[in-house]
């Protein structure tokens, strides 16, 4: 029987009520008394020297209060990269300054070089048009091969467009080269992991308020991690003391990575609010979002898989160029390296792995972590080359994977790419998947499709990801400049209800429903009496926020630890009230009782006693019932899964239709299966979108050709099927208290290769000698591939 409350219950979401009735409060919904409006002037060329900006006419426009240019920020710091990567030769990566507003040069279309503040948004918009600006356009460097091969420099001062040239694991390079040289069979594949725009439906927005009486700032902003944003602004960009800056991320309309990062617009509105002594608001248009939100993916890769004639894997070797765009966004250097290279052994017992990644500056928008972040790139490369190898070897692609899977009795398993996987059962997932997709019925369905003039293909895939990113000690050694713990405070109020303050931020993930399920289960009380507080640095403990499928695995563990402290203290109070030893107190169904007796007090009575401590052992126990825990995991978590889909290809047009898609995931233990299923659905849509329709295209001059929803194809309801999702019977994570692994990114990681494998299968079934087609598989690309 499914549970109807607590851990494991498919509880409907309490936050839905406000979203369904229009009462959600997103950043742009907040209006402060006396607020002015900021509008940015953005470069319309990809590379150019700012010769002059004359603000005189703009300042004379109606309603204009101030104009800012890069000149106003030369005395403050820049927006840093959060992860230091060293090149193979030991040299640290190149780190050009990323100023609040472009100064001296503009480096991509959309790069902001000025901002106008006016009484109304329309007045600010009009005044931007009145800025007299001279920018001398320079040749732009857009594609990575040209950028490496002596093209125009994106940053003159660093004298190269290569940010770093990284090897993982460098000590394995010679052995991997040797293994590939001597291998009986080597499959080689060159592929492009297409550049994507995250496209959270809520565009970024920031409103700053300044109190001259206390010198305190408040920033309302679309962030996945308000403390991280505050830290970046305080310690690196503006130098506002952390105790004078409150960052609030209210309801946030999706993130997918793009709202992890600090952006210059946040610093600008803070500076403007101080100067004008009034609130200043900025909300991005969708066009600005396309031009300036950090993009995702954009790898060009060559991967080789060496194996024995029987299909036993010997080595994976990868060479990748990763686009970082014009500036280093906060996680941009970690994404193509430690979130990618460390996963290049996949789910397999392969003994040799070597990865080389060159990160490349170009005159394009910054590229950073987008749902999956490095792990989709790793999975795509591995799972495409395995499929190709299966065809070359004449083996069944599922059997080839099974032959090389890590087996359940091999955990903990040290992968050849440097990670220690704690748990998993890939064969069990594949067994489940074959049933879900009805593999036995495929031949009949293919025959039916062929009768209708269509080609049908079956694609499979296995993935593993490293989630819950942490632990701080490990990531510190690897170059992270931040810790990756999280924090929670459990506050039991005097009347017995609870406020749980968490460092994680919910922008669609349902924390307000799922986290109380955990606390309620532990305390044996109703989840309805527990509220989650998140997204406000003035209310919550210092937490690292939500990304990398980490909220439950890391912050949820902090919630457990804090709740354990609450229980320990409450037992002491109960023991006093019951005149017993605290070792004899048991907690069940919200009642503290003395073991073996009928003496008990309720959770509510203990709470009241904590805050009205009459006849209280004040020498032994402090009043109050509130506890904080910081949790820093011992390892990553390792969600894994097996995916399959069937596609139909219309040979007349090249159009691909996804007929069915099945996902068998291992997320460890599940707190709320309804929410987890929804997370998989969303990830699948983004991954299928990448595979079939989404693409970010710059022309050779650096103009973004896909800068609106008319040009960038977002997956719509009629592009997608109903999905079959199963995450039952997972193998629990062995090192966090809930045994959970994280589910937010899986769908986006596992689905792209599944689709491509299926389309290649369909095309080959029609006699087309097509080994690979780069994403997205638009009708024109597929049709062209079919023509040979």
């Amino acid at each position, binding site marked *: 029987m499914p549970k109807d409350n607590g851990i494991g219950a*498919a509880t*409907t*979401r309490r*936050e*839905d*009520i*406000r*979203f*369904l*009735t*229009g*009462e*959600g*409060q*997103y950043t*742009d*919904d907040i*209006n402060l008394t006396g607020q002015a409006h900021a509008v940015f002037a953005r470069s319309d060329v990809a590379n150019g020297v700012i010769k002059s900006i004359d603000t005189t006419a703009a300042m004379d426009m109606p309603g204009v209060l101030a104009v800012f240019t890069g000149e106003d920020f030369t005395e403050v710091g820049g927006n840093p990269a959060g992860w230091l990567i060293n090149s193979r030769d030991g040299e640290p990566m190149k780190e050009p300054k990323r100023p609040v507003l472009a100064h001296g040069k503009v480096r991509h279309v959309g790069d902001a070089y000025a901002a106008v503040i006016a009484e109304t948004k*329309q007045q600010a918009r009009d005044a931007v048009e009145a800025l007299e600006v001279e920018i001398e356009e320079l040749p732009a460097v857009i594609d990575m091969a040209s950028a490496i091969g002596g093209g125009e420099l994106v940053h003159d001062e660093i004298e190269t467009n290569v940010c770093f040239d990284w090897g993982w694991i460098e000590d394995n390079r010679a052995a991997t080269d040797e293994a590939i040289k001597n291998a009986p069979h080597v499959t080689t594949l060159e592929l492009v992991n297409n550049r994507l725009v995250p*496209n*959270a*439906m*809520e*565009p970024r927005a920031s409103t700053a308020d300044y109190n001259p009486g206390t010198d305190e700032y408040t920033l309302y902003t679309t962030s996945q991690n308000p403390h991280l944003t505050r830290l970046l602004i305080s310690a690196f960009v503006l130098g506002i003391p952390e105790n004078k800056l409150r960052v609030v991320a209210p*309801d*946030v*309309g*999706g993130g*997918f990575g793009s709202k992890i990062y600090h952006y210059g617009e946040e610093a600008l509105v803070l500076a403007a609010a101080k100067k004008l002594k009034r609130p200043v608001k900025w909300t991005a*248009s*969708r*066009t600005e979002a396309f031009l300036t939100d950090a993009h995702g993916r954009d790898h060009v890769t060559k991967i080789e898989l060496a194996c024995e004639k029987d299909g036993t894997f010997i080595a994976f070797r990868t060479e990748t160029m990763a686009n970082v765009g014009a500036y280093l966004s906060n996680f941009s250097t970690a994404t193509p390296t430690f979130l990618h290279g460390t996963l290049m052994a996949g789910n397999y017992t392969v003994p040799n792995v070597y990865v080389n990644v060159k990160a490349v500056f170009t005159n394009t928008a910054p590229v950073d972590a987008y749902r999956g972040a490095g792990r989709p790139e790793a999975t795509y490369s591995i799972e495409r080359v395995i499929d190709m190898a299966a065809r070359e070897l004449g083996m069944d692609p599922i059997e080839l994977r099974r032959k090389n899977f890590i087996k359940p009795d091999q955990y903990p398993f040290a992968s050849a790419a440097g990670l220690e996987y704690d748990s998993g059962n890939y064969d069990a997932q594949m067994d489940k998947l074959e049933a879900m997709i009805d593999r036995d019925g495929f031949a009949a369905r293919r025959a039916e499709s062929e009768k209708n003039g269509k080609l049908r293909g079956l694609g499979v895939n296995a993935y593993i990801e490293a989630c819950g990113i942490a632990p701080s000690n490990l990531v510190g050694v690897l170059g992270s400049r931040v810790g990756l713990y999280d924090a929670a405070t459990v506050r039991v109020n005097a009347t017995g209800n609870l406020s749980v303050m968490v460092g994680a931020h919910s*922008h*669609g*993930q*349902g924390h307000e429903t799922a986290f109380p399920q955990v606390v309620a289960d532990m305390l044996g009380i109703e989840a309805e009496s527990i509220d989650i507080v998140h997204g406000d640095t003035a209310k919550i403990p210092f937490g690292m926020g939500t990304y990398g499928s980490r909220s439950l695995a890391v912050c949820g563990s902090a919630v457990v630890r804090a709740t354990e402290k609450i229980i320990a203290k409450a037992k002491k109070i109960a023991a006093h009230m019951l005149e017993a030893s605290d070792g004899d107190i048991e907690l069940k169904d919200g009642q503290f009782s003395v073991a073996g007796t009928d003496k008990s007090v309720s959770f509510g009575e203990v709470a009241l006693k904590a805050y009205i401590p009459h006849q209280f052992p004040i020498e032994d126990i402090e009043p109050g019932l509130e506890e904080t825990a910081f949790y820093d995991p011992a390892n990553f978590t390792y969600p894994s899964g097996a995916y399959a889909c069937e596609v139909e290809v219309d040979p007349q047009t090249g159009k691909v239709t996804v007929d069915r898609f099945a996902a068998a995931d291992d997320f460890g233990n599940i707190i709320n*299966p*309804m*929410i987890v*299923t*929804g997370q998989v*659905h*969303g*990830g*699948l*849509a*983004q991954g299928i979108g990448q595979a079939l329709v989404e693409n970010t295209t710059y022309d050779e001059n650096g103009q973004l050709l896909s800068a*609106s*929803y*008319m040009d960038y194809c*977002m997956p*719509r*309801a*009629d592009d*997608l099927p*109903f*999905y*079959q*999702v*199963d995450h039952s019977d997972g193998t629990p994570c062995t090192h966090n208290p809930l045994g959970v692994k994280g589910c937010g990114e899986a769908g986006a990681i596992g689905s792209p290769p599944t689709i491509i494998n299926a389309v290649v299968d369909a095309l080959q079934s029609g006699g087309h000698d097509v080994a690979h087609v780069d994403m997205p598989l638009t009708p024109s690309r597929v049709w062209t591939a079919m023509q040979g």
Partner: protein
Amino acid sequence: MAQVSMTVNGKTVSGEVEGRTLLAEFLREGLNLTGTHIGCDTSQCGACVVHVNGEAVKSCTMFAMEADGADVGTIEGQANADGSLNVIQQAFQDHHGLQCGFCTPGMVMSAAALLKENPKPSEAEVRTYLEGNICRCTGYHNIVKAIMAASGQDVSAIAAE
């Protein structure tokens, strides 16, 4: 600036607008009805769908002045008289048809318009009708399911949870 007046969620309202003020902007900024969202600038995303004289309209495609005298319905006026969720809203909650909530008002308003003209839509009809509403979170599965459930159809055979 010009004066406009209209009925919004059953109440007569009026305000000063510029000729270029969009209906979406008037609702959000003039009337503080911030449930209507703006997700794009090319009338593609559908987060701003409202009802004008009973028809679903993207409120970013219409000037406020064009709605002078009209009967406008927004997400804030969709709940039942006692404040409980209406059938469509309730189906979205029951079937987890929303995550971040940003596209949700437009989805609910579009769904209401669909069910008015087609009380028992097929899966394909729902998917086709939603072409003008983009959701980035849900992969549409649970939105389609919720709308079919709201129409009184049995959705228990549709996969999962």
